[in-house]
């Protein structure tokens, strides 16, 4: 029989060991999958690891990785706030969509898109949009005791249909476009490129700043402590004078705000317009859930996990182009990484002991 024994003291060393083990499992699985999916597996593995140095300019490839990582990390750190307190918002995709809708609505409302304050106002509107959408499941949980896991997820589909509706209905733009979309926003409120030829733009700096601020709040202020207490025991939360309901409001507001900000940046920097949901949403909101857990809900871990996963994603699309390996390999790797990391996290707290079972005789 396999027994798990609680460790007296778990520290960074036990964590490092289990993370390394998880990485090894993920790597082994990825290699096995590439062997099955490609007729040139050695090339596929090599190219996936070193794609930035293959073919196109290196900064373009790294730009793609950083671009995707920024969105994932910002949404994931927002989600980690609730997850730390066992509050499960899995509807970031919808909050992201609402961030974009909020920003676009603000664009339509303000008369002067050339003003210097127009861009920040759009971002702010995105934050508010995501936040409000996230407060719906919070409200339902606090007042009706509904399961926020279900409500937040279902609101994703509501939000994405709403986005499509806006694009085919009231905000319909150029009818000759090949997809349902709105008219683009003015150049003056679009994020500007940092390095020409790459995907790096000022919006990413906004995301980085937001990430750092929230990371500092989580690591150094009472909010982080409050979430820790809430995670472990709701009764101690009451003893400390923290209202459990307020923790729900707070974590949904923060995670919604972060997803909304990401949505607003996405609108101003990547598309410049709203597009029907299936062509607009890139599953950042769902991938971020995985990132949050891969990063063990710690800001630094989330950052590394976001970089790792977007490296895998960009690498997978690279080998799809060069070696015709289907890029769904990236999703497989993500999921395996999640299982490996969650499974190995047990080893942080517990020692595995192999024992022969003995039937204890009654005395």
């Amino acid at each position, binding site marked *: 029989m396999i027994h798990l024994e609680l460790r007296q*003291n778990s520290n960074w060393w036990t964590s490092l060991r289990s993370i390394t083990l998880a990485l090894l499992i993920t790597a082994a699985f990825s290699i096995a999958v590439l062997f099955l999916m490609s007729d040139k597996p050695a090339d596929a593995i090599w190219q996936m690891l070193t794609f930035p140095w293959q073919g196109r300019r290196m900064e373009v490839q790294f730009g793609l990785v950083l671009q995707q990582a920024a969105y994932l990390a910002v949404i994931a750190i927002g989600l980690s706030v609730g997850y730390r307190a066992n509050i499960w918002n899995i509807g970031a995709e919808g909050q992201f969509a609402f961030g974009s809708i909020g920003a676009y609505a603000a664009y339509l409302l303000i008369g002067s898109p050339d003003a210097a304050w127009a861009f920040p106002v759009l971002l702010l509107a995105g934050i508010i949009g995501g936040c409000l959408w996230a407060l719906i499941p919070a409200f339902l949980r606090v007042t009706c005791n509904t399961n926020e896991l279900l409500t937040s997820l279902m609101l994703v589909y509501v939000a994405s249909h709403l986005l499509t509706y806006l694009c085919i209905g009231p905000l319909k733009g150029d009818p000759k476009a090949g997809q349902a979309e709105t008219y683009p926003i003015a150049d003056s409120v679009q994020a500007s490129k940092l390095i020409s030829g790459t995907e790096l733009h000022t919006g990413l700096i906004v995301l980085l700043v937001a990430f750092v601020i929230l990371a500092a709040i989580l690591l150094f202020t009472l909010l982080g402590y409050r979430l820790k207490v809430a995670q472990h025991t709701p009764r101690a939360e009451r*003893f400390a004078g923290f209202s459990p309901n307020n923790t729900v409001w707070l974590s949904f507001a923060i995670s919604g705000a972060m997803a909304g900000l990401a949505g607003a940046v996405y609108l101003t920097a990547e598309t410049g317009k709203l597009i029907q949901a299936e062509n607009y949403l890139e599953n950042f909101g769902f991938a971020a859930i995985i990132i949050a857990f891969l990063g063990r809900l710690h800001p630094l871990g989330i950052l590394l996990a976001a970089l790792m996963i977007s490296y895998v994603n960009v690498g997978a699309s690279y080998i799809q182009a060069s070696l015709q390996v289907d890029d769904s390999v990236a999703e497989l790797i993500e999921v395996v990484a999640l299982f490996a990391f969650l499974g190995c996290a047990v080893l942080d707290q517990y020692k595995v002991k192999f024992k022969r079972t003995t039937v204890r005789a009654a005395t």
Partner: protein
Amino acid sequence: MSHAALLQTHQISKAFGPVVANEKVDFEVQPAQIHALLGENGAGKSTLMKIICGLQQPDSGQVYWKGQQCTISSPKVARAMGIGMVHQHFALFEGLSVTENIAFSIDGAVQGRTLEDQIIDLAERYGLMVEPRRPVFELSAGERQRIEILRALLLNPELLILDEPTSVLTPQEADQLFDTVRKLAANGHGIVFISHKLKEVKALCDYATVLRGGRVVGSFDPREQSTESIAELMLGSRNISTERQHRNIGEKRLQVRNLSITDHDQALHVKQMDVHAGEIFGVAGIAGNGQEVFYAGLSGEQTTTDNNAITINGTQAGSLGPNERRVLGAMFVPEERLGHAAVPQLDLLDNVLLSNISNTEATSKGFVNRRYLSAQVEKITKLFDVKHAGNKTAARNLSGGNLQKFVVGREITKQPSILIINQPTWGVDAVSAMRIRETLMQLAGTGSAIIVISQDLDELLEISDQLAVLHQGTLSPARAVQDWNIEQLGLAMTGSTSGAAA
């Protein structure tokens, strides 16, 4: 013996380390007898029942079943012999139907007839009306208990043990239960009825055994004894010492007027309560009589809209939460150490912070002063001799006694103006317990007002100045400890008077 009893224990002893739970217990149940087992918390009732049900083995002594000596090595053996037990806390699956719940527990014992027919049959015979197909979550506590009883009866027990069966029932449901119990006895079943409520015992039982401190202190027909004398037998002839340390009683620190709240379905009513500086106010009562909601109401974990109901140091505080009450000078120590007073997974530093959120030395503008917390850990562990392996030790790695000293010390080092402490020495070793009691008395000596909620009557008699009794969520009027006698205390604790003793 002239005839064989259904069950007889002879000189049963059982100790857990230094704690003697049962000492030379002789206990006898006859067929068709309703036999009450009485005693305070910790008198040894549970241990005796666990031995009879095969959950524990006695250190010495014998058990006889129908005159034959036997060894009850496991609950399975006990069930096969014909001993059934209905526990105080139900073990039912909410989502399953009555029949399904019963089917689960009687693996293969039912043959031939369908289980449902059998349930209906038994239910009719004993007045245990249930609808076999209803899911459990729709049922009241009384109906759930009937399922538990049916479950036990399906195994054809000759002896049925009911552990505090009325504690969760309404008076009407309790009356129905009594009818059932009488029918069972009339059919020849022996019944052991564990209860604290003397009125019930006198109404229902034809024999009673009283345990105190693990020993049998009396066996008699409860119908022939006065409630007073039974209560006194349960509590023993303790001397309420009239000599107490002289402390200066100062101004009123805590005032409660007509406080009515409900928390987790427990209701609390406190008509009047005043605690002064330098005073220890004891709250006695048998477990499960509203101690938790009383603590929640005073600590602010459960607030009331009536702001006047509680006054802390002159400020109306009924609607204030725990931290606002802490700012007014009240500090709290809840009963449960792990999971309420402390977060098991967090280290000592973080656990000091738990009750210091509103302390401006520990936090300011949302930031945490770790240096202060670290100094506090030093101070607490040194002053209260808490053995630990450094500030980074998780709370769950401390022993019960050490953790209790830590959570008590955490509040006392802040020199509280009012301290509310629930079960200060519960499950704590004797040395630590003594240390904690001394500390509380010293604290009162320096002018704090202290409210001690405890099930340990000896403890309360030792340290309290004022004493009140909590029974079914209602606090009796308080009296100076010297003005109580054991008989009155026993009556108040078992609910045999309706507060008329005041």
